[in-house]
């Protein structure tokens, strides 16, 4: 199947990275779609946790917010938010945390707080939410992002959450014991950190994307792995699962009064 959008490729490429025994802290948007596609395809037993306190959810439709009733109804159990952050996140029970970004640098550091100066911002963004501790408490971090020069920048305006800092062993120097960002999946490529410098390098390019497109939408000079693959295109099953999920979601969320 070749009839797919870059967004779909991004979601499906992210879904493939998840294992059946992963415990994922899921954010809204592309991460939520990816996690649920994984659950509905190759990873039926994956544990999805949303920061609203729902543990082991299997929603029929994607939630619009992090705390939709659907998440609670389909969860194994729902705990309070303080417990979620204490026992489950800080307790070190999450294998994969998914984060998005307004600004991302080459070392996986993320800004979702402000554009411009913090005290006199050009744009006041929503802020970090769970991200500052997700970034350091989860076993590893996967980042999904649509490439754009204003998003992939050489220097972020604010460290909402810490990736690899200045690179190298910066995490260890701060006493952080988790791996941090190990994967960046964009609408054009799959990136992984260089084992030494921790700078993200492209390992796989999605069909239809080019090195030129990747560089044009990235604010730093892109580096490539020695062997760059083409990302396998979505299978019929993957694409069908994603589209069905999104169709169910649109139907459920668009109706206002008749959604009952």
């Amino acid at each position, binding site marked *: 199947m070749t009839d797919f959008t870059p967004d779909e490729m991004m979601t499906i490429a992210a879904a493939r990275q998840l294992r059946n025994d992963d415990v994922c802290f899921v954010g809204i948007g592309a991460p939520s779609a990816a996690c649920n596609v994984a659950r509905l395809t190759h990873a039926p037993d994956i544990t999805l946790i949303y920061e609203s306190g729902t543990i082991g959810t299997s929603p029929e439709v994607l939630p619009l917010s992090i*705390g939709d009733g659907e998440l609670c109804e389909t969860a194994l159990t729902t705990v309070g938010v303080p417990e979620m952050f204490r026992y489950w996140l800080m307790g070190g029970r999450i294998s994969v945390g998914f984060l998005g970004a307004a600004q991302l640098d080459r070392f996986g550091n993320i800004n979702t707080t402000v554009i411009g100066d913090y005290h006199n911002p050009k744009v*006041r963004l929503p802020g970090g939410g769970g991200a500052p501790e997700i970034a350091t408490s989860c076993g590893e971090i996967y980042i999904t992002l649509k490439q754009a020069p204003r998003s992939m920048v050489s220097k972020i305006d604010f460290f909402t959450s810490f990736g690899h800092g200045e690179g190298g062993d910066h995490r260890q120097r701060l006493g952080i014991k988790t791996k941090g960002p190990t994967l960046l999946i964009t609408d054009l490529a799959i990136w992984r950190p260089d084992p030494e410098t921790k700078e993200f390098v492209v390992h796989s390019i999605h069909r239809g994307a080019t090195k030129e497109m990747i560089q044009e939408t990235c604010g730093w000079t892109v580096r490539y792995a020695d062997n760059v693959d083409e990302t396998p295109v979505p299978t019929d099953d993957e694409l069908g699962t994603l589209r069905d999920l999104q169709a169910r979601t649109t139907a459920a969320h668009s109706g206002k009064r008749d959604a009952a």
Partner: protein
Amino acid sequence: MSKFVPLSQAVSDNLHDGDVVAFEGFTHLIPHAAAHEAIRQGFKDLTLLRMTPDIVYDQMIGMGMAKKVIFSYAGNPGVGLLRRMRDAIENEYPRAIETVEHSHSAMAQAYEAGASGLPLAVFRGYKGADLPKVNPDIKMIECPYTGEKLATVPAHQPDVAFIHAQKADAKGNVLIEGIIGVQKEVALAAKRVVVTVEEMVPDFADLHPNLCILPHWTVDAIAVVPGGAHPSYTFGYYQRDNAAYLDWDKISSDRELFAAWMQENVLSATPEVFAERVRGLKND
């Protein structure tokens, strides 16, 4: 019980100009009706406390009621930014507001510390993050056993907390279920507690022994307001009005449109309209 009072009285008895107030709810059970009553009564100089200030805080900020907001994620969930709050921060319209920003983990644990009567929460957090540079309330202490540097934040101890819940029994005990968020913690952390509920039932007999319940002696006032969380939702009663959240993005994008909407839907309205608003959203 004299605890059951009309919403207008519950608000006027317990909220005052200058208070630190939390209208809490984590997507679920957001006390919109109580917040609208507070808007109608026109309080000033409030410090608004909440993990996820969303449209109801956007409304209060847009009405100029807040001098300060303490928060960890200020967005319209699943939709985007809070445009009235941005206008206040970026353009000081209708007035300047101070912001004190935390992570979710810090906020949740600050409520937990407040509920526990402690002056602070201690946790592993903020490592490598910039928030400690811009929020002087965030400090670090050293673990006397391991030497690890741990983050601290002051406990939240609001003057008054407003929450919405499913049910109260005749004695005024309050039941919360579903996504319980920080509802219990904010209530126990606050000096005064006002609860709006979907309904009053005679008693909680035959319920599971481990449910989330606030005993009547922890609650100051209860108002029965069916639909009182709309456009948020009440698990077991009605669904989230996602369309209303999408609409808010438009309404809040324009100062005049906002003012007109507030006049029609809040200032000229009453708590009774909430029951009507959730009619089409009810669970089977």
